[in-house]
């Protein structure tokens, strides 16, 4: 083994990187951006789950528990009427509420069992868990004082249910994400390959219109993407048994829209990369921040304020929300929230198609 020859390879590699400023920026900049974002998400003082306390108890125990919950820092609890709590729960303004019945204190004294009703919105297991835990802790403090009292809450869900688990929650989002991500990567690399092998120049010197090139690409990849979407959906529903309360056709349409958006985003972004190597660099820059901010992992309602604004500007947020609306809540197109989700994803598709067509020419020069 020759140290000189090895050193020659090492030196050549560093020289190449020295000239590729973009790769260097990605290598040293992207980790800071991604980790910074993650840090801000987790420690940025985001909002805690919002819950209601409906205290109908005539006795002293209800008031004590309500006051205990309002002091808790893990949730943001406030007292309200049962009608208001139910309405806010349905609209998604509350992650849950606890109902203390009129005979709550009396039953606790007689049967030595505390059984409040916990109503959960249920579509986000993380938030539900925090609320149950907060209620549990506030009761534990009181049970500790009373001694010998058993805590047996009745938990009710608007969406999902006791068997609704983390996979059900993430599965709905991932069905769309997997298709979006893979189709994006394949398109951007294929389009760059078209340029690298010189065939794009031939296409541009032919009577093809720019729109025809983009549309042809879009249809070709969309066919593949839709087959992939069927496969992903079937696997999730039939093999993994991911919870689905909605219309399978609607899920497929939303998946299809995401695939079309991914194809055209790939075509558009290929303009900003010169090589397939540079194209792959778009993954951490474009995909990862969207994964962190689109509500797939961290609910947008609990994000720090400024990040919420950013999340609301990302199309993937609406796609993920749409998937969860359909699969977890059983939403159909009569729901205004789902109309918004479809509208934004569709609008994004149109936007990237136009951007792809308009910028195609610059890629040859």
């Amino acid at each position: 083994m020759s140290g000189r020859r090895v050193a020659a390879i090492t030196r050549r590699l560093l020289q190449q990187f020295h000239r590729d400023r973009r790769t260097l920026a990605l290598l040293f900049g992207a980790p800071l951006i991604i980790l910074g974002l993650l840090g801000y998400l987790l420690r940025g003082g985001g909002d805690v789950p919002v819950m209601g306390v409906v205290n109908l108890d005539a006795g002293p125990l209800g008031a004590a528990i309500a006051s205990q919950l309002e002091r808790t820092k893990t949730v943001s609890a406030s007292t309200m009427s049962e009608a208001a709590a139910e309405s806010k729960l349905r609209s998604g303004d509350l992650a849950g509420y606890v109902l203390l019945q009129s005979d709550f204190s009396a039953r606790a004294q007689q049967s030595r069992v505390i059984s409040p009703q916990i109503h959960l919105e249920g579509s986000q297991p993380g938030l539900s868990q925090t609320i149950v835990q907060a209620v549990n802790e506030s009761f534990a403090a009181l049970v500790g004082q009373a001694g010998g009292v058993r805590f047996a809450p009745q938990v009710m869900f608007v969406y999902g249910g006791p068997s609704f688990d983390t996979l059900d929650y993430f599965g709905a989002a991932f069905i769309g994400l997997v298709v979006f991500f893979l189709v994006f990567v394949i398109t951007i690399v294929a389009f760059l390959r078209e340029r690298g092998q010189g065939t794009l120049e031939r296409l541009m010197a032919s009577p093809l219109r720019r729109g025809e090139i983009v549309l042809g690409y879009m249809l070709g990849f969309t066919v593949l993407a839709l087959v992939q979407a069927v496969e992903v959906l079937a696997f999730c529903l039939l093999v993994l048994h991911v919870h689905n309360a909605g219309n399978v056709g609607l899920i497929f349409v939303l998946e299809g829209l995401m695939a079309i958006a991914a194809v055209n985003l790939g075509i558009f972004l290929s303009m900003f990369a010169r090589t397939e190597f540079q194209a792959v660099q778009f993954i951490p820059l474009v995909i990862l921040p969207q994964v962190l901010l689109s509500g797939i992992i961290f609910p947008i309602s609990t994000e720090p304020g400024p990040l919420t604004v950013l999340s609301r500007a990302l199309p993937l947020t609406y796609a993920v929300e749409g998937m969860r609306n359909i699969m977890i809540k059983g939403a159909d197109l009569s729901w205004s929230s789902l109309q918004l989700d479809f509208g934004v994803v569709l609008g994004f598709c149109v936007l990237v198609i136009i951007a792809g067509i308009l910028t195609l020419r610059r890629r040859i020069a």
Partner: protein
Amino acid sequence: MAGETYAVEVDRVVKRFGSLRALDGATLRIRRGEVYGLLGPNGAGKTTLIRALVGLVVPDGGTVTVLGRPARNLDVLARVGYMTQQAALYPDLSAEENVAFFAAIHGAHHGVREALEFVELWDRRGSVVSSLSGGMRTRCSLACVLAHKPDLLLLDEPTVGVDPLLRVQLWNRFQRMAADGTSILVSSHVMDEAERCDRLGLIRFGRLLAEGTVPELKGKAGVDRLEDAFLKLSEAGAE
């Protein structure tokens, strides 16, 4: 468009890339049905000029007319065959699939077999391009611009890396096509190839230094060899 005298008219075309003037007032005319050789060293502006003819390069000044219409006209491009310097093909498609694709985007539904037979690749039509030799790829690339039977062929250094036998075959084919009425522009920096052209344009520094038949150019320079004529006319043009 039978009334067109010239297949290509380039008039005082200027194209700058930053501080570099790739085309610096280039002017030339290609008659219908002739093989016109664009002769010049590497970096002379040959490829930029050809790309301007198909609208891939937008000139900063001057005019480009192709088959009687301004360049980058889609109807005109349907009648043009542009063979790039690199054999730009889809490596994972067969030779026949490549030719059929380029024919289709030019609006042709027939002519694939004829084009592949013309370049003697019909027997290898089912082979994927990545398995073909360099010379075969060049021939396949040529077939891709022939299937739609263009009125104007633009061939950017089509014989680079091609063995001498194949080169002779290709030139015989170009001349047969020209005899059938196709106008052909071939760029090259190989002098012996240039001798096969009906007329030549000597290009350097983005300018046409001289234009004419081989005997005319030799006569203009007062030398017997085309290579010497090119050197002499280049020196005169640089002054």
